[in-house]
């Protein structure tokens, strides 16, 4: 990072960067409940929101805070909550409501050891599948996994932009290590950015269909008070917004909400491909593990081993097309994760039979070290 007068350098902890980014993205409502290791986000929001005429509220529980976030978003205000493991479990029902009713909202999950109370102060990456499938039923969701303080800042802003434009809940998933990591970041580039606005309903109120089948699959949202007087329900609903059990209407509704992420894949997908072009051995990693993996890949390259790193930033939906093209022709794909093996299942799904998928798992509350990955690489090459 070059230091120039235009740069606005700041030393920020990951959790703080997340809060500052939310404000920069236009977030004006935060509801949360204290939980380690995400509490700093709430604390920073409590400090920042009053300065911009926003609202901070510490709710009675995790469920209530998710409800309040969805309620505020229905009111037309960009809203966010932050939590960790057990709290994320509690939020799932209302997260599903937001997905089904297409209410934009951002949920930060700072992962800690699990299951249950687990290891509140230790890092883990055990919520990868929960972030995708946490709430019941088929539903669309976007999950972003930053790997540095800078990226927490960028991806939190992006989370709001995606959520608002696509009307999908967005989870920002990072582990305790990055949440509590302090790094210097440059805030100047994002400070004067244009805020992304939700597509609001306009035009005639008579006969307005709040869940109409639009070309982009994203119906404009009616703002309360604008005269549309629509109904929002977690029940399956037709284009009118009213509950329906008509198989045709239900199918079209589910197809649209699931399909819209496919339709906007270009916008949703993000990844980093490092030294992948000629890689015979691909490491797939995200979050703090990706930083260790990058170092291992560099070490391997120094030893003339053709290793590469594929780092999905958008974890869900998984950037499968890019990954498949990169994985094609590789001999092995290494998947280091701080869990007992979650993303490796997705990777296996996308790899051909000739490619071996080798998980590297650690779930003892310690991050995976570069050496551990490098050793595995060497071991594979020597075979």
């Amino acid at each position, binding site marked *: 990072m070059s230091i120039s007068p235009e740069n606005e350098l700041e030393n920020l902890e990951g959790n703080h960067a997340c809060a500052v980014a939310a404000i920069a993205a236009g977030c*004006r*409502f935060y*509801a949360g409940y204290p939980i380690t290791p995400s509490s700093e986000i709430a604390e920073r929001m409590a400090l920042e929101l*009053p300065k911009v005429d926003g*609202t901070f*509220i510490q*709710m*009675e*529980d995790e*469920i*209530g*805070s*998710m*409800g*309040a*976030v*969805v*309620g*505020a*978003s*229905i*009111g*037309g*205000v960009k*809203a966010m909550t932050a939590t960790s493991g057990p709290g994320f479990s509690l939020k799932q*029902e*209302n997260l599903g*409501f937001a997905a089904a009713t297409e209410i934009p909202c951002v949920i930060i999950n700072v992962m800690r050891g699990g299951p249950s109370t687990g290891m509140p102060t230790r890092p883990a990456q055990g919520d990868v599948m929960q972030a995708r499938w946490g709430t019941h039923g088929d539903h669309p969701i976007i999950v972003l996994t930053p790997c540095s303080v800078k990226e927490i800042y960028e991806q939190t802003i992006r989370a709001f932009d995606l959520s608002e434009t696509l009307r999908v809940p967005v989870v920002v998933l990072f582990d305790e290590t990055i949440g509590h990591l302090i790094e210097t970041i440059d805030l100047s580039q994002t400070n004067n950015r244009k805020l992304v606005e939700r597509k609001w309903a306009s035009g005639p109120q008579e006969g307005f269909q709040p869940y109409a089948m639009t070309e982009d699959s994203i119906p404009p949202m*009616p703002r*309360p*008070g*604008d*005269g*549309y*007087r*629509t*109904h*929002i*329900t*977690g*029940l399956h609903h037709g284009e009118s917004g*009213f*509950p329906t059990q008509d198989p045709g209407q239900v199918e079209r509704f589910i197809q649209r909400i699931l399909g819209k992420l496919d339709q906007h894949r270009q916008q949703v997908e993000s990844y980093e491909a490092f030294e992948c072009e000629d890689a015979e051995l691909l490491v797939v990693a995200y979050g703090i593990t990706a930083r260790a993996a990058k170092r291992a890949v560099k070490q391997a390259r120094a030893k003339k081993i053709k290793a590469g790193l594929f780092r999905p930033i958008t974890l869900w939906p998984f950037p499968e097309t890019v990954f498949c093209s990169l994985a094609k022709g590789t001999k092995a794909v290494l998947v280091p994760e701080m869990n007992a093996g979650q993303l490796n299942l997705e990777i296996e799904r996308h790899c051909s039979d000739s490619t071996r998928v080798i998980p590297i798992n650690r779930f003892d509350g310690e991050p995976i070290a570069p050496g551990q990955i490098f050793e595995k690489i060497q071991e594979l090459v020597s075979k």
Partner: protein
Amino acid sequence: MIEENIQRFDIRDYLRTHLFPHFMCPGCGHGIALRALLWAIHELGISKDKLAIISGIGCSGRTGAYIDAHTIHTTHGRPLAYATGLKLARPDLEVIVITGDGDCLAIGGNHLIHACRRNLNLTCLMLNNETYGMTGGQVSPTTSNDRFTTTTPLGNYEPVFDACALAIGAGASLVGREITMHVTALKDLMKEGISHQGFSFLEILSDCTEIYGRKNELGESAEMVLSQKANYRSDSYGNQVDEPFKPRDITTGILAKNDRVEYLDACHQHKMSKLQKAMNT
């Protein structure tokens, strides 16, 4: 007589008539409560565009959809949480919560007590029919003693929750109770609750005729409505010397009212005083 003085109230002006007849059972008290609410809204002159109705899950939760306003049918027990978010984000909206005894007191009990404590300017209407009607009539926190439900085949032996006492204890600044038979009084109470600056909790005793009523042989719809009368005792008789026979006292009307500062007002005042201090130092 009075209603003629203001614009005539036709309930259909406030309903999504294309959804009718509604899904509630014959004689369901929720319909009467809904009339009282819309009548109150009419008399208060609240614009439908500025009205947000938030409801939970259950029979009570489904009543909101029939109102021609911005209606939100949320998750089980959580309407107060959603309402808190919406009201904080949009103080210009009139936010009214419709919930039931199970929704509000069982699964959503935590949200209720904290909504009472915060005193945000919301109105919470709890339609109490003593049962989980939508799921077939299971025991609820307000099911009377000895009543039969599908989960109390031998009669209910669990103590009954006094929702109003709970709300008063938790600090709601207006607490009231009314029976659906008293439509006019119910409307007036709702007007009081909605115009009150702060959190108002109103318990509305409503009849589940088809499920709870049948199971307990409480009579036809009309008999059930009439028996509300036998069970109730107006507060104005409270201190009289002679007390006629009363099988089960239900006090109605406003049970508690205080002028605790409203949440957003408190928030604003607090900010102002901090600013003042900062300027002085």
